[in-house]
């Protein structure tokens, strides 16, 4: 066996022209000619095929963030409770009393479009690994999913397939999916979005990082056998074949195995508990290439890897294939040489396959062997740190001014009862029960408030703490004004956790965008990042992680800019009886918290659903009011003053009040001074139900927090009754409930 050279000397000057011919290998792998030259410059020579493969996956947009990195630095990432910020596999925050929470969000948009069931399922597998890589037990999942309208068969196929895939994987792996979002818009027809978020819990001494450790540390590959799955999935190699002479079709579709993942979780958690690993890294996009180079780069070391030791599913895989494979359910553990036997024994007990595949070396070189043959020798850090950075061109879209001036300008209000039913029948607003009842959302006995409410509230057993989570996205709003829209999502998510009695503590974000090579898309991106950053700063909440998904376009048509915000809040102590939607009762008052805004319907579900209109400029959020609303909500929830709290979002006041009535099976009568108040989605507003005798106390809470609050109605009877100036409209709760519950099931048949 050849021994690895110490630090190689790379010449700087040699930059060959890319090979002539029909389509050089680097292009087929998704590298540009300039990127190819950079590789040559780094290596001081032309790359070997396996090396080119490694650079192509590691420098892909997905792995390198080459278009987005410069912007993401804008996010505030610090707070006293942040233990691990962006950059690791998941963000980690301190909950006090020795408890840590790990949080991460990821997209699986393109795989879902290719194969919805496995694409969405493997998204769940991947996000779980990001979290248990940190040492935490994954305790809950959320899914944010967006599709084209359900009247098209292809969209139904994608939607039902993705939901089944999430259910299949999440349920079988044994991590409850406790919330999420479902939305339908034409712009997602060619490009569905599947984002998934995971929360993990651990004790503070269980935290592990993705570091390779010191020279001598041994790399142990755990989990599923490596096959040709998803080769080049990250580098958009979808159909190009690696070797033109071979006719085998190389599938890009990864297949998930939740059973393997479940065993892997238990095995890894035991390794952490027993202190048997120095560091650990999951194998996701870019597979082995990433799981060797990144931990080595983080530790400032190199590594020697032996591909023949990798346990494989199929014979005859090339070095490049082994390095690029995205086979699921694999982890790379870095282990002190004295602990290797114990690690292998733990793996065996959990029936997880394990192989020793490498050793950490001093000096920063990653040397990869196949038997005696050296197939790759590159500076480990160059794969991640030397990835290209693109300062893509930005340009405000020419259409913004037109959009903003294109207001609907209704003269007369439409029929209130019909409009309410129309909104409740909209699949983006309607009950998501058809989705979340396919997900185990109760496992672990932590789910105090489950799906179907504004936020999810989980208890932390053995403590008095509660964790509240809300995830929010709204592509239409962000299309109309990315900065305002994105900021409003942060405030909405923060208010949602506050309505569970929790204080916002950390944000993760998933930025789903179109083609970054278009200046308009990069402008939307920059504005969105700005909006999120401004709102997080105003709230004092750090961003601890996120994900960027570009190239969400089909036939040149980009999706709406669609950031998704995941907010984690901490309630310590957790309210004894947290507010719920189903606790409104006869005789309770209905309170509206929040300002009487200018009457703005821009971007509302009302304009879109009732009139097919998307235009106008949405209202800007107000940081002061946002903070006041959060304060008031937390106090009301903590004191148990309001049995019901509910924010006003999609569909406005009319839908929000109907949701309370449906959940509680009770009617309401309410008064508003202008019909537009029923549908406006202006931020920082929420509803409360409370006993009449608590009215004074409620008004005090509002005054102390600095937010206006008014009694606008009373729960009674079996109808939802709106008293408008000069008109009264009503819908019976039973009809409303049927419409709301049937909207999705009746469309998917």
């Amino acid at each position, binding site marked *: 066996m050849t021994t690895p050279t110490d630090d190689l000397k790379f010449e700087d000057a040699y930059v060959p022209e890319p090979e002539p011919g029909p389509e050089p290998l680097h292009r087929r792998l998704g590298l540009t000619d300039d990127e190819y030259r950079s590789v040559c410059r780094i290596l001081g020579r032309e790359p070997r095929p396996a090396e080119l493969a490694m650079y192509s996956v590691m420098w892909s947009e997905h792995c390198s963030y080459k278009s987005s990195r410069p912007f993401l630095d804008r996010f505030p990432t610090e707070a006293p409770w942040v233990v691990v910020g962006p950059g690791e596999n998941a963000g980690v925050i301190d909950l006090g009393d020795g408890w840590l929470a790990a949080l991460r969000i990821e997209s699986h948009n393109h795989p879902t479009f290719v194969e919805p069931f496995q694409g969405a399922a493997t998204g769940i597998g991947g996000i779980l690994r990001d979290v248990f890589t940190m040492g935490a037990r994954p305790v809950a999942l959320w899914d944010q999913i967006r599709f084209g309208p359900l009247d098209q068969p292809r969209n139904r196929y994608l939607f039902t397939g993705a939901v*089944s895939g999430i*259910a*299949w994987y999440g*349920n*079988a*792996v*044994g991590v409850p999916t406790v919330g999420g979002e479902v939305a339908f818009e034409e712009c997602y027809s060619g490009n569905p979005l599947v984002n998934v978020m995971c929360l993990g819990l651990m004790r503070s001494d269980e935290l592990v990082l993705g570091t390779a450790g010191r020279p001598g540390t041994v790399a142990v590959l755990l989990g599923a056998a490596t096959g040709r799955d998803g080769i080049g999935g990250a580098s958009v190699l979808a159909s190009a074949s690696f070797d033109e002479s071979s006719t085998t079709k190389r599938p890009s579709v990864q297949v998930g*195995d*939740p*059973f*393997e993942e*479940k*065993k892997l979780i238990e095995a890894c958690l035991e390794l952490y508990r027993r202190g048997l690993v120095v560091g650990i890294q999951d194998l996701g996009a870019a597979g082995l290439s990433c799981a060797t180079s990144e931990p080595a780069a983080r530790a400032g070391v190199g590594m020697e890897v032996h591909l023949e030791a990798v346990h494989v599913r199929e014979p005859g895989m090339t070095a490049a294939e082994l390095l690029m494979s995205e086979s699921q359910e694999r982890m790379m553990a870095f282990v002190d040489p004295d602990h290797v036997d114990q690690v292998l024994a733990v793996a065996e007990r*959990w*029936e997880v396959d394990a192989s020793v595949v490498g050793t950490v070396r001093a000096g920063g070189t990653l040397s990869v062997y196949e038997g005696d043959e050296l197939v790759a020798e590159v500076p480990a850090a160059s794969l991640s740190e030397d990835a290209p950075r693109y300062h893509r061109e930005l340009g405000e879209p020419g259409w913004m001014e037109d959009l903003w001036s294109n207001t609907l300008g209704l003269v007369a209000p439409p029929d209130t009862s019909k409009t309410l039913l129309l909104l409740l029948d909209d699949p983006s607003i309607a009950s998501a*029960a058809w989705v*979340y*009842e*396919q*997900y*185990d*959302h*109760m*496992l*672990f*006995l932590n*789910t*105090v408030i489950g799906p179907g409410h504004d936020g999810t509230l989980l*208890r932390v*057993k053995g403590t008095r703490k509660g964790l509240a989570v809300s995830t929010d996205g709204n592509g239409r709003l962000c299309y109309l004004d990315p900065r305002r829209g994105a900021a409003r999502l942060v405030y909405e998510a923060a208010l949602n956790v506050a309505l569970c009695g929790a204080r916002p503590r950390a944000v993760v974000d998933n930025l789903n965008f179109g083609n970054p090579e278009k200046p308009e898309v990069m402008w939307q991106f920059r504005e969105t990042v700005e909006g999120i950053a401004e709102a997080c700063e105003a709230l004092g909440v750090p961003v601890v992680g996120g994900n960027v998904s570009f190239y969400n376009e089909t036939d040149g048509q980009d999706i709406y800019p669609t950031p998704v915000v995941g907010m984690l809040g901490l309630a310590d102590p957790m309210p004894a009886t947290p507010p719920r939607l189903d606790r409104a009762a006869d005789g309770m008052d209905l309170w509206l918290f929040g300002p009487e805004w200018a009457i703005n319907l821009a971007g509302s579900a009302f304009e879109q659903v009732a009139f097919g209109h998307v235009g106008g400029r949405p209202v800007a959020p107000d940081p002061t009011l946002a903070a006041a609303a959060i304060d008031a909500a937390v106090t009301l929830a903590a004191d148990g003053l309001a049995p019901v709290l509910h924010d006003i979002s999609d569909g406005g006041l009319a839908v929000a009040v109907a949701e309370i009535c449906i959940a509680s099976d009770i009617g309401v009568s309410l008064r508003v001074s202008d019909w537009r108040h029923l549908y406006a989605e202006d931020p920082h507003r929420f509803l409360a139900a409370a006993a009449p005798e608590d009215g004074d106390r409620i008004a005090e809470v509002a005054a102390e927090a600095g937010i206006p609050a008014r009694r606008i109605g009373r729960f009674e009877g079996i109808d939802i009754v709106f008293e408008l100036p000069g008109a009264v409209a009503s819908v019976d709760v039973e009809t409303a409930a049927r419409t709301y519950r049937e909207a999705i099931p009746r469309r998917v048949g």
Partner: protein
Amino acid sequence: MTRIGVITFPGSNCEHDTVHALGLAGADAELVWHRDTDLAGLDGVVLPGGFAHGDYLRPGAIARFSPVMGEVARLADEGRPVLGVCNGFQILCEAGLLPGAHIANRDLAFICRPVEVEVVDTGSVLTRAAEPGRRLRIPLNSYEGAWVDPTGEGRVVLRYTDDPNGSQDQAAAVANQEGNVVGVMPHPERASEPILGSDDGLVLLSGFVEACREVKV
């Protein structure tokens, strides 16, 4: 203290929840790995929910060959209380300790939501503490939740009031003739604390713990 073993197969996932709830019902519950074969000192066993062996092939098909299952069968023969919840119910059927088998839910969708069941037979270790006719709200969480039994030998002890999955006789829980082996499809451990929405499952688990205690003396 009544000692109850909660058998954990690779892929089980409700084992910790089951231990937690049995504790609330007054037992001292502990995990037993599926390769262990020593159940001495245990007064009863529970096979918890989850996806043993990924539910591959058929739920419970592979799990029934786990080394521990011989001992479980012996306990069952001796008349000790044996309870299977959800996946545990499927395993007991595959193992032949309960009659019948499970097929996919009628609507071919996984169902996770509370359902209402009625106590129809109190002659089992699961239902002995509940009044006949009592209705309980307990979460269901299964895909292959429909029980079928061409032999008609099963003793239905809990019945759905509004059949969610197409089970024969609307069966939600089934016992052997002796009543000491019971399988239940909804999860009583998920209905064991008011803060989680219902504690109706406690009457079932407490009855089971009691049965284990009695066998002991």
